[in-house]
């Protein structure tokens, strides 16, 4: 393969000073928590409880619904108020079946015991990690146990903990690393055992000195030579999984492949901390750190929030909206999605909520035709030619889109940002991907049909030739025997 490279990317204003100025605080408790059953990648979880049932904090209330799925636990003690469709943030307020929990304010814990992880085999440890409802907290919410198991096909695995929080406005991982670095390092040690890996690199951006200092101290105290800290340039999207792996290990993840193909398992630092809370403190994944930011909210800060808390309550907890509030965005300023209202719960994927005002939102001028200036190609971290993808996208030329690598687009939005004609490129690519995916799937099933047809043809020929051979043999034997 040609020399691996980290190319493209943008230097963006971070907008994180205000949200990291104050220490982490727990969010104020709320009366009702809404927990969508499909808030993780894979099959939705299946409820274990019924309406009216009394539940405790940390009690499993839904079990995995398929091979790739996750457990769900109650963030508080109380009763199951309902199991019904509720507007969900990951469906942009379209309804999703959810367990609604009424908080009784007593905060009674479900009895679970800590796990002495180094006495377990890696398989047992992986299974237990799954039971904690742990999913990737970097935003992809992929069930961690499944990722760990599928990594077994790699050799000499190395663990990469992604603390390179590159998207502007989001600072939850930064706060986690500043204040809870020990938990991240403990999680790293658990994961190293679960993967039978010998190396762990915690990668952070070079503009987070407090996090770096805290992590270095925690690593030193852990006396574990397998874990190291690594700083990467703070260009966006340095924290993109593929870009980070290339920056840290100098290899490229093959197109259509996974990090395990280059013997790497990449997890978010928040996921590592969640593993620590479950294995060491018997606390399953029931809360996460959320950044509340933007010029449209009075107080910008990071909160430790129980899952299911309504976003409206978070805003209230931060002093409420300012008069300049214009739009609510879940996620960061580059890849975030606008939400139609704030009566939506915090889910495992909610890393940041931006109450954006006109100050935060870049005005978009009228869309002009592409002038082939090439700014987008220079900015693209996947080394694509977005202007060509644009031409072929609007012409719906699926063959050309495949040749030019549409499926390799990571949807980071760098091309959008630099386009002088203000073309919404990332949006177009996101729209074209399903058509191309469908065609690739059709090609895959055609290949499978070909294989089965060839196997059947071979089988029939074999049966026929065996039959003829048997007949010939019988003829020979009869010819030998005189009648």
């Amino acid at each position, binding site marked *: 393969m040609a020399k691996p490279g980290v190319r493209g990317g943008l230097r963006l204003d971070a907008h994180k000073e205000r949200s990291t100025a104050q220490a982490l605080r727990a969010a104020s408790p709320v009366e009702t928590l809404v927990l969508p059953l499909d808030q993780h990648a894979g099959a939705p979880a299946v409820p274990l409880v019924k309406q009216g049932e009394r539940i405790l904090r940390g009690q499993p209330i839904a079990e995995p619904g398929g091979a790739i799925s996750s457990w769900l636990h109650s963030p508080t003690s109380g009763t199951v108020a309902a199991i019904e469709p509720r507007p969900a943030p990951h469906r942009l307020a379209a309804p999703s079946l959810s367990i609604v929990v009424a908080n009784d304010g007593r905060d009674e814990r479900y009895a679970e015991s800590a796990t002495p992880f180094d006495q377990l085999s890696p398989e047992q440890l992986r299974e237990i990690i799954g039971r904690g409802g742990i999913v990737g907290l970097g935003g992809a919410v992929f069930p961690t146990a499944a990722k760990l198991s599928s990594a077994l096909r790699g050799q000499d695995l190395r663990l990469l903990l992604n603390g390179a929080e590159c998207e502007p406005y989001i600072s939850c991982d930064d706060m986690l690393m500043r204040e809870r670095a020990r938990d991240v390092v403990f999680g790293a040690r658990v994961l190293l055992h679960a993967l039978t890996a010998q190396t762990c690199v915690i990668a952070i951006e070079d503009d987070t000195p407090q996090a770096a200092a805290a992590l270095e101290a925690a690593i030193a105290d852990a006396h574990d030579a397998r874990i190291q800290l690594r700083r990467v340039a703070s260009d966006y999207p340095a924290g993109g999984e593929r870009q980070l792996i290339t920056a840290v290990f100098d290899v490229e993840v093959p197109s259509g492949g996974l990090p395990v193909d280059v013997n790497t398992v990449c997890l978010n630092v928040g996921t590592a901390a969640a593993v620590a809370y479950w294995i060491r403190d018997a606390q399953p994944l029931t809360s996460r750190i959320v950044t509340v930011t933007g010029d449209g909210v009075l107080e910008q800060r990071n909160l430790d929030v129980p899952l299911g808390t309504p976003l409206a309550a978070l805003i209230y907890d931060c002093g409420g909206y300012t008069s300049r509030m214009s739009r609510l965005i879940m996620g960061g300023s580059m890849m975030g999605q606008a939400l139609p209202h704030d009566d939506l719960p915090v889910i495992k994927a909610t890393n940041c909520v931006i109450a954006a005002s006109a100050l935060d939102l870049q005005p978009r001028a009228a869309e002009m035709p592409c002038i082939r200036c090439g700014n987008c190609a220079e900015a693209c971290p996947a080394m694509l030619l977005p202007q060509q993808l644009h031409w072929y996208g609007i012409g719906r030329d699926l063959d050309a889109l495949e040749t030019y690598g549409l499926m390799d687009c990571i949807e980071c939005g760098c091309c959008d940002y630099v386009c002088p004609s203000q073309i919404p490129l990332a949006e177009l690519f996101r729209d074209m991907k399903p058509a191309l995916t469908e065609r690739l799937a*059709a090609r895959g*099933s*055609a*290949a*499978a*049909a*070909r294989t*089965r*047809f060839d*196997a*059947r*043809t071979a089988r029939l020929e074999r049966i026929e030739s065996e039959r003829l051979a048997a007949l010939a043999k019988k003829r020979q034997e009869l010819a030998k025997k005189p009648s």
Partner: protein
Amino acid sequence: MLPALLTMVGLAAAAGAAAALATRRSNEDQNRLIDEIDALLPQTQCGRCTFSGCRPYASALANGEADINQCPPGGNATAVALANLLGREPRPVDPRFGTTPAHPLVASIDESACIGCVKCIQACPVDAIVGASKFMHTVIADQCTGCELCIPPCPVDCIVMRPASA
């Protein structure tokens, strides 16, 4: 005048000869061509093209014994792709070979009527029907290519085509 004319004719002849030489294929190239053609076909293995499967059709196309518009399951998109590959005039699928379905279809056995005769199992070109003599037969929908070869042999007409679910 004459020298110019001779030069032009000579150049044209030389270019034509070069082009003809370049498009000659060895046996290995011929096999590769058949592979390339086969890769464009939908692998339905239905036989509507009058050949016994997709690869025989590909082979006939490579030898110039068939036309590019004989594959209804591939539809017009496949016909155009074949035309582009083989340098022939693109044409829509010839309706004499069949019609292209609007949505992908898969076979479905009405289990209440099935008599377990295995005739459909023998007919399926991709072994997508599971069953045995006097046992229930069922179509594995994911593996059915929609070729409809199972429908004529069924003595009780219990197989229908349904739209494939996404």
